[in-house]
């Protein structure tokens, strides 16, 4: 799947599936990178950076099969990104970051588990993601079943992000997925964990204002544009430069 990389030329549309997975990983990695220097304990500085690095590695590996990684990351505009809206959500407090990670990593682990035969990266990714999921689960338990304050923050985070989870079960062109099985396994795992964490599973819908699958169509939420502006500005300020 290689495509001649011309600096400055926006990418032609690569297949949705691989691009969506790469964009998910890039965008979530970027959000986690924003935590550097701000984490609640030193151990979490290490853990969050570690997860961010794994995800960035996944993104780079997937992009490299589609074209030039930097061209894909730095020279596409908001409407050309295919990441789900969940991963672009701002970090918020530590509970929001953990809820986002729980929802996403649980999905990613199951997804790559289904793609072991068809996506070369999947074998490596599924091992990394199992660690991310484990980390998010442990913190969901500690925050949910910790103090009254942490419980209410964790519940608010789960409630706030729930509407972005439906998008995870939209079909992705080019990826052979059993979506019903994915949804069932994800729901069982996540709701079971929320119960153990003494949290309530939201009854609200799993989709937001846009139609389901919006991020996959390049329809994003408003915080995504500023995130890209920050990420891309230096690269775009020096056209043709290498770094």
């Amino acid at each position, binding site marked *: 799947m290689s495509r001649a990389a011309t600096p400055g030329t926006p990418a032609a549309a690569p297949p949705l599936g691989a691009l969506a997975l790469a964009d998910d990983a890039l965008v979530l990695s970027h959000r986690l990178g924003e935590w550097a*220097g*701000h984490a609640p304990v030193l151990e979490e500085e290490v853990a969050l950076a570690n997860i961010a*690095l794994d995800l960035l590695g996944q993104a780079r590996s997937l992009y490299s099969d589609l074209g030039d990684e930097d061209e894909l990351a730095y020279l596409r505009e908001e409407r050309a990104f295919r990441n789900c809206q969940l991963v672009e959500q701002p970090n918020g407090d530590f509970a929001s970051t953990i809820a986002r990670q729980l929802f996403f990593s649980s999905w990613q682990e199951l997804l790559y588990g289904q793609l072991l035969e068809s996506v070369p990266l999947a074998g490596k990714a599924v091992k990394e993601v199992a660690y991310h999921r484990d980390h998010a689960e442990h913190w969901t338990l500690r925050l949910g079943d910790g103090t009254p304050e942490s419980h209410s923050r964790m519940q608010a985070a789960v409630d706030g992000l729930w509407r972005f989870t439906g998008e995870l079960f939209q079909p992705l062109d080019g990826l052979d997925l059993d979506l019903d099985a994915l949804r069932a396994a994800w729901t069982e795992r996540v709701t079971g964990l929320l119960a153990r964490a003494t949290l309530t599973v939201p009854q609200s819908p799993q989709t937001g204002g846009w139609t389901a699958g919006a991020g996959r169509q390049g329809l994003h939420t408003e915080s995504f544009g500023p995130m890209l502006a920050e990420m891309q500005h230096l690269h775009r300020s*020096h056209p043709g430069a290498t770094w």
Partner: protein
Amino acid sequence: MTTVQPDTAPGPEAYEAAFDAAVAAEERIEPRDWMPDAYRATLVRQIAQHAHSEIIGMQPEANWITRAPSLRRKAILMAKVQDEAGHGLYLYSAAETLGTGRDELLDKLHAGRQKYSSIFNYPTLTWADVGAIGWLVDGAAITNQVPLCRCSYGPYARAMVRVCKEESFHQRQGYELLLELSRGTEGQHAMAQDAVDRWWWPSLMMFGPPDDESAHSAQSMAWKIKRHSNDELRQRFVDICVPQAEALGLTLPDPDLTWNEDTGHWDFGAIDWSEFKAVLKGNGPCNEQRISRRRRAHEDGAWVRDAAAAYAAKHAPVENRTHREEAASR
């Protein structure tokens, strides 16, 4: 091996003599060994300051993580900042072997009662600053820290072996970043030169005040915590950097830099010690910002740490319960 054990009927002098003999024989002092109170206090001060520098030092570089201009550079920078958090962790552990907890040291940092390296009070204004920090700041740190691998206090010396390995790697990456910029477009080259111009003198200040004004030096050298004087290390660093700058195609902002045939060293211009003192006193460009951001991260994270402690207390095995609950309620 426990080295500091007096032979018979231990009076205070016997402990002192055994300690001095161990230091003289280049034996390592270990946590359970007797040591003079002042030796312990000096090490706590120095290791804590070193640990704090790793933690505060994450900020100027983290400032560029979200703007790194290529995915490769972004990965390198994230890994570096992660390593710094790891170095902070080893160093706090080393300090804890001397009987002071990490929480207590962090409280002192947040209250401004313990220092961190003055270099981190300078801002990172362009991407090239990330390279200049790697090359010059990490380079100066390595020059300072390699002799600490032979420091008389075992836990500190062992932490330094590990830290220095990773720092050397970061330094090479910083150099390589600058090289890429220097050989790049005109705009990139100018960015690299500007960064070196701004970071050169502050990097030389990292070796501390001149030997005749250095308060702790003589005692630290006698105890073999320190192996070389500030000025000696500073000279070593300048001698390493001059040819490297040339290889980079960048100049160092010092008109007095000249090769001295007689000494076999590079002579360099006078350092502006008034600037150094101002930064140490808290009046550098970023002192206020660095410490208040650090404090805010700690305060914002209090509910998370409380939650972890409460959860641990609830779910601890029964025999550990009282102890953990006590910890949680503190």
